[in-house]
C-alpha cells in the first residue's frame, strides 16, 4: 500500500525536479545575460566599479548554481545512508 503511494510520489517528484532544474538554469542564464549587459553598459560609460559589480554578479550566480548542483545530490546521498529504521 505504502510502496505504491511512494512510487507515485517519486514519479511526481522526478517531474518536479526536472522542471525545477530547467527553471533554475534558464533563470541563471537570463540573470547572467542581464549582468553582462549591465557590465557592458557600465564599461561604455566608463564606470569601473559597476563593471566589477556586474562581473562579480555573474561569478556569484555561477557559484550559486554549481554549488546547488553539487551540494544537494551529495547531501541526499549522505542522508540516504543515514536513513533511520523505525524506532519502535
Amino acid at each position, binding site marked *: 500500500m505504502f510502496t505504491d503511494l511512494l512510487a507515485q510520489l*517519486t514519479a511526481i517528484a522526478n517531474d518536479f*525536479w526536472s522542471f525545477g532544474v530547467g527553471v*533554475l538554469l534558464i533563470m541563471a542564464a*537570463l*540573470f547572467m545575460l542581464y549582468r553582462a549587459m549591465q557590465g557592458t553598459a557600465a564599461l561604455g560609460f566608463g564606470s569601473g566599479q559597476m563593471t566589477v559589480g556586474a562581473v562579480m554578479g555573474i561569478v556569484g550566480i555561477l557559484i*550559486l548554481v554549481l554549488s546547488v548542483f553539487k551540494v*544537494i545530490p551529495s547531501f541526499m546521498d549522505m542522508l540516504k545512508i543515514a536513513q*533511520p*529504521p523505525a524506532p*519502535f
Partner: protein
Amino acid sequence: MDEVVSTVVSLASQAWESLVTGFLVILALMLLAYAIRTTAAYGVGSGKAIGETAVGFIGIVAAALFLFLGVPPMLREMLEITACSHVVADITLWSQRALVILLAFRMLKAAYMAVFAQAMGSGEAVAIMLQEAAGVIGVMLILPFISGVAVGLLGC
C-alpha cells in the same frame, strides 16, 4: 492480542519507512525550490540573498539531521523504560509502544512542516520542530513518573 500488536507495529514500520523516504524526496525538492528563490533574489541584485541562503540551507539541513539522528534514539530510549512487573505490565508495554509510534509520526510531521516552511522563508520553522521535540522529551520524563505511581499504587 500479540498478533494485533505485531500487525500494528509492522504497518507502522512500513509507514515510517515510506514517509522517511518521502521526506528525502520532499527535502531535495525544497532545497531546489530554495535555490531557485535565492538565485532570483541574487540575480536582481539583492545582496542579502546569499546570507539568507546560508541560513535557510542550514535550517533545512538541521531539521533533516535532527529527524534522522536525534529522534530515533530518543524514542528508543522511551521503549527501554522498564514496565511494572504486574498484570498491568503488558498493558504498560503496549501503551508505551503506542505512545512511541504516535510520537514518531508526530515528529515526522513536524519535520515535514519545518522543511516546507523553511523553504518558503519562515525563520521559525526549525524552532517549532524543536518545540515538538521538547514535548517528546516531556513525555519521556513523565513516563518514569507514571511507572513510579503504578509501583506505589499497585505494589508491583
